[in-house]
């Protein structure tokens, strides 16, 4: 039972982390119609910037400054790259962001090496929060979850309660109308892109210290983030939260399941046959845990392509 709770909490926190990165991505897609392949690269840049700044301004300083830097990178990407290829259509923009993500990954390998770097939690934070089931639950995990929740609340309030938020939402929903009303929509686009990037950077700065910081982290997380935004619904913030938690929890719980599909067949007395068939059926669920999100993504794309909470396509 305790093991279950620990898995559950880990899953929730991983899900919240996914949300921090996917929130920006889903907003950007809803607003500009372009799926930003480089979004997870912002996550990676956040981790690496924080790692570099850690010695200069301390851990908390790095966590605060790094997202700002990443946000500026995001603004530059929108202004100098995306805007230029807007005329060629969404597929072209998608490909451009794909190329940019490639460049970021290779540049990081150039500057920091093709291996993980030693970005760690400061000793002061590397303490247990409470004991559960005989093991200690680290404070830092709770901290990550807390930051993610705080971020969600701030964004939600910003979007729904402030004037800026209303302008942003109108630009997301009907950009031409918002422009006709006199709002500087290109500026809004740039701003939302930058803020989305900064959020991903914050997630990277915070999570990179706990999980590993390496040049492949964009790719690993990036695919997950795509799964989240597709499952949740491209453009829906609530959907992104729901899907992030779903995927985080399911993946985390699956890792602790030591049974295989063949054991499931035991319910109908066919486990011997299933074991004979072998292959996929004898794989443990824990090994398959990485594939579950993709299976879920495929399912959603076929059954409800708008996502759990997105528009009906």
């Amino acid at each position: 039972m305790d093991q279950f709770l620990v898995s559950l909490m880990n899953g929730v926190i991983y899900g919240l982390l996914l949300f921090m990165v996917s929130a920006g991505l889903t907003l950007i897609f809803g607003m500009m119609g372009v799926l930003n392949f480089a979004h997870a690269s912002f996550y990676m840049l956040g981790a690496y910037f924080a790692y570099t700044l850690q010695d200069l301004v301390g851990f908390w300083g790095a966590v605060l400054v790094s997202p700002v830097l990443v946000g500026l990178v995001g603004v530059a990407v929108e202004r100098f790259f995306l805007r230029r290829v807007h005329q060629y259509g969404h597929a072209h923009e998608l490909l451009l962001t794909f190329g940019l993500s490639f460049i970021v990954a290779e540049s990081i390998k150039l500057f920091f090496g093709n291996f993980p770097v030693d970005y760690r939690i400061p000793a002061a934070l590397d303490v247990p929060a409470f004991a559960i089931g005989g093991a200690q639950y680290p404070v830092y995990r709770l901290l990550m979850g807390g930051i993610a929740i705080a971020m969600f609340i701030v964004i939600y309030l910003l979007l729904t309660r402030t004037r800026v938020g209303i302008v942003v939402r109108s630009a997301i929903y009907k950009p031409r109308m918002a422009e006709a009303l006199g709002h500087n929509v290109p500026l809004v686009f740039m701003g939302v892109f930058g803020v989305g990037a900064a959020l991903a950077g914050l997630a990277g700065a915070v999570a990179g210290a706990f999980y590993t910081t390496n040049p492949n982290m964009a790719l690993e997380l990036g695919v997950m983030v795509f799964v989240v935004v597709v499952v949740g619904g491209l453009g829906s913030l609530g959907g992104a939260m729901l899907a992030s938690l779903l995927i985080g929890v399911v993946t985390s719980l699956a890792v602790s399941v030591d049974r295989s599909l063949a054991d499931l067949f035991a319910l109908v007395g066919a486990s011997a046959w299933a074991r004979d068939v072998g292959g996929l059926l004898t794989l443990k669920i824990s090994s398959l845990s990485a594939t579950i999100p993709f299976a879920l993504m495929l399912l959603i794309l076929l059954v409800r392509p708008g996502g759990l909470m997105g528009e009906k396509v």
Partner: protein
Amino acid sequence: MRAVSISVFAVAAVGVATLFALPFLLSQGLLNAAVQMLIAALFASAYNLLCGQAGMLSFGHAAYFGVGAFGTVHAMNAIGGAGLLPTPLLPLVGAAFGLVFGAVAGWFATQRTGTYFAMITLAIAELVHSLAPHLKGLFGGEAGVSTMRMPAWGFDFGSTTQVYYLTLGWALLCVGLLYFFTHTPLGRLVYGLRENSHRLRFLGYNVHGLGIAVFAISAMFSGVAGALQVMSNESANYVVFDPGLSAAVILNSYIGGVKMFLGPALGAALMTFFGYAVSDLTQSWLLYQGILFVLVMMFMPAGLAGLPGTLSRLRQRFGLARAMPLVLLSMGAAILLSLGGAFAIELLQRLFSQDYRSAVRLHPGEAWPPVMLLSREWSPASMATWSVPLLLFAAGLLLAWLARRRGAALEGGQAESLPPGLAVPRTEGAA
């Protein structure tokens, strides 16, 4: 028109003849590179059927390459190592596996279009990628599955030359079939899919069925490419399902230019060749490839294969005398900026490499040691070192600015001098 097709035919004939003559011109090492180039070119051509012709952007095409590869490697090991088919016919196994898997995957993927389609292809590829390490019976674990080419039809297929001719034969056959396909009714419909699949529905076509057919055919030829690679390397490994190969074929195709039939093949051959040629000179080859891709996407959407067309259009519009300076300025700018960029990247790569950093750390307080580049020593502290890339960049930017001004002047001048009806319409970005 007749003159054009004769010259195209002549170029093609010369090209094919050169390909056949390569084993007599190249060393074994380079010949091996040529085999890889042919495989990459075939894969890119198969990819382009879906991407450039049908307008369906696939982000996980390595899956079909890999399925063809593994199917072939198992076929080669079948019957106690004798092989299911004689060696020259083995790519048919790759084709079969690619076709079937492609049809199944295509049934799922083509139910949606655009971004959703791209995401489905990514999910399918990642599904296979994450499953492969666990299915050791099929994919052989970290060491992969190895095999041996069996003699057949009087050849022993031991030498690179024989492997080269086998690969060349299949590559030419498949590219030829792909070209023929574009002239068939289904091939023409594929262009309709790209241009307006919505209207096709109202003309009575089953668009989903068409999508599956195109997807499966593209996957089939990708499977052949995978088979050829397995036959050349005599092994298959699940790293083939890494996003890297899917990324490579996308980069190669767009750098070459997806609007022309042979564009992706040329792009793939070129990129593969450079990968071989410069892998000793630089560790940052992938970075250069990424930068080239982004530059092409931003400034040359028609790709490298579109350059001759752009040049000839310039000549038509402005005449050789006035177009030449513009072309020379642009080329000069491109060369200088590339050199400056390459120099800077190579400098940075050396400065940030692990060896250099440990050398600096070993001697704290002392001046940083010089780096080796182009067989010379460059001191990172001296202005001379950094002035090289800076000057190259400055010169390149100057030429680019001059080229831009000249281009604008030409446009403006022509708008005044020619009556509207005579101006050659620009097809790039036209409504």
